[in-house]
């Protein structure tokens, strides 16, 4: 592989390490009574932010209590992601373009599975509401958007990548670029 690709891969893999320290995603809630906004931050290994306040509000609509313990993902994710990062470093170390391709595919798979999983949780929390809830609005579900904004009663709910997510996205991009430069710019080696 070219030196530039190897550098990009190393930078990408290093950026990914940030996911252990800063949240990947966040759900933002805004309402007239909450001008300062509420936020739930999602990290590789748990949740942070105004979880208690959000749970306090959710009980009116009968949404299930959000507890990090209920998500087995937070127990496995750090290992899976560690493996992915390690693969990146190995790719550079053994200088294998084949491994680079595998690595890129596994990254894409990881992202797709992650979003699918996130969507499932959002769907479950938004739809499986306690029938005894104080506030019931006919035909209303409270599933937050996968990405972007959505109005849920008095709240504007936003679902957006957090700093960690942006960094990981950036490293994904670096991997894609390195892959592109390796294979596209040297077609004769593509066999």
């Amino acid at each position: 592989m070219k030196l530039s690709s190897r550098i990009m891969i190393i930078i990408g893999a290093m950026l990914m390490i940030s996911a252990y320290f800063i949240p990947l995603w966040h759900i933002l809630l805004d309402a007239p009574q909450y001008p300062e906004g509420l936020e739930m931050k999602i990290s590789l290994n748990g949740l942070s932010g105004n979880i208690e306040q959000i749970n306090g509000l959710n009980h009116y609509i009968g949404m299930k209590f959000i507890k990090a313990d209920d998500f087995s993902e937070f127990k496995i994710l750090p290992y899976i992601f560690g493996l992915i990062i390690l693969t990146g470093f190995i790719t550079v170390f053994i200088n294998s373009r084949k491994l680079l391709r595998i690595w890129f595919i596994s990254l894409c798979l990881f992202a797709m599975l992650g979003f699918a999983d996130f969507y499932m949780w959002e769907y479950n929390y938004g739809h499986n509401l306690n029938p005894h809830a104080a506030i019931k609005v006919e035909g209303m579900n409270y599933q937050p958007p996968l990405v972007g904004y959505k109005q849920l009663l008095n709240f504007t709910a936003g679902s957006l990548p957090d700093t960690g997510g942006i960094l990981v996205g950036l490293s994904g991009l670096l991997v894609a670029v390195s892959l592109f430069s390796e294979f596209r710019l040297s077609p004769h080696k593509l066999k």
Partner: protein
Amino acid sequence: MKRSYNTLILLTSVMLASLFTSSCKPGKVGASIDADAAQKVYVAPGKYDELYAFLSGGFSGQIAAYGLPSGRLLKVIPVFSQNPENGYGYTEETKPMLNTSHGFVPWDDSHHPELSKTNGEDDGRWIFINGNNTPRIARIDLATFKTAEILELPNIGGNHASPFCTENTEYVVGNTRFSQPLDYTKNDVPIDSYKENFKGAVSFVKVDKDKGTMNLAFQLIVPPFNYDLAHAGKGPSHDWIFFTCYNTEQAHTLLEVNASQRDKDYVMAVNWKKAEELIKAGKGTKIAAKYAHNVYNESTHMATSTMEKETQILDVTQFPGLVYYIPCPKSPHGVDVTPDGEYIVASGKLAAVIPVFSFKKMLDAIDKKQFEGKISGNLPVLKYEAVLHGEVKKPGLGPLHTEFDGKGFAYTTMFVSSEVVKWKIENLEIIDRIPSFYSPGHLCIPGGDSKKPYGKYLLSLNKITKDRYLPTGPELAQACQLIDISGNKMKLLLDFPTIGEPHYAQAIPAEKILKNQVKFFKLEDNKNPYVTRMEKDAKVVRTGSRVDVYMTAIRSHLAPDNIEGIKLGDDVYVHVTNLEQDWDVPHGFAIKGANNAELLIMPGETMTLKWNPERVGIVPFYCTDFCSALHQEMQGYFRVSTADSKVPLKFSIGNNPVTQ
């Protein structure tokens, strides 16, 4: 012909006009209202005021916080008076705050708010205020706007010359308006033995520089005058504090006449640094005393009251160099020190001039022993002319108090002529005057008694309201005026009503207080012995006739909400913990027929209401603060049975699917 006719008309008109004008009453001087006043005091919705102003509540015993320049009332802080609105002084946790050596005194007459100072500047950490009636000093924590501490002062009558602080809040002081025999001396004496048996006691209360906690360090025993006000020196005069005294005639009856006989009374200059050294050197005499020291603990959310049993005194006649008296015309009231610490302005409330004394000249006079007499045998009275910097001539009638703008000008209130007068410190020339509505007592310039006045505004704190606002029967709102002092001429900006009585005020730029604001209390830090941290821990415990209810409040239910097995004759203590951990979600708690008050519990806080059921039946309780959309559902019942009933103690809450 035509010409002479015209002249005749002209002459007649002039005559008529002059007749008309000479029979007219002289017009009143109107206040010059700033043409842009509305714009200068308008704070747009959602925007914050530039300053916090803390106005004493006077006979309401409280402090009220207002925003300036809008004059909007932000909060009434309960200090010396019970406040049923939030349970202060009624809850088991806060009752000890109002304990004194006279027992429970749930009111006072609070006069002078004093912001804590660092290097002579307001630091925004605490505000102190005196209880004039039952001598006390309170400290309010400006991070929570709660009264954190109240210290009673022994041996004094009315704690009026208080709680003025030294340059770094080393001490806050208290001095007596009513001299009286010391508490633990032979004090069952004829009142006409005043000169012989009555004493003044200057209290020096040490303030911990980190925590703010107060302790009565010592008292100076001084002649039995009436001590009115005080201000500490700063910069060059750092070691000194000045008190005004009137009734140096030492009258004990009809003071109106008998205490107004002498041409001059005194400003008493006290070298507090020297007193501190004497105390350190063990020169103080320990005497028996009895005074309450009440401290509110923020982590237990509870106050404790300790009865102190002694203090130490220094008899000033025994220690030369501790006090000097400066003659001051006619019953001086306010005594104020310029920002540079060099000039001392005293206002004789019956005097025709405002004397301004020089600190440098005072030291010189002491050095050169320029005395004109002695008090109590050996306390030197300095020569008036030797200490005088100059007199402000014809300032108006009834000068009371002076503050400074930091640009070389002083502003003095005139009670009798109802105006504020601006004059130049350097040459004592009067620059401007503006009417006050009506009869101002104190005035407040933000930072106006500090080393670095913020200036810009002046509040005239008035004693009479009359026609300023819509009338409210015979008892009217209190009056206060905001005046722009940024220019050469003072301009009236705003008139706003206040709670009774805006005796004195201090104001401070908002950012100095904003940065320390507490939004709510952390539940995990709550050390109250009766805290209930989780709903599942809510319970009811009977110990003899005492019943402790461990209750939680969260939107929108109380747990437990059905309690049976309460009997007549029980003492029921309801300990309510607000489980919310969010900004501005208080819960209230009230019981039908409760003889005390309701509770207003901040997030993370525990409060206890004592309730004595007085009849058999079902008694509802509920949340009084509109906390949420389902606030009206936040309720429960007690079942009260006869004293000999066999109804078992039982408590419950319906199945709550979400918070389990």
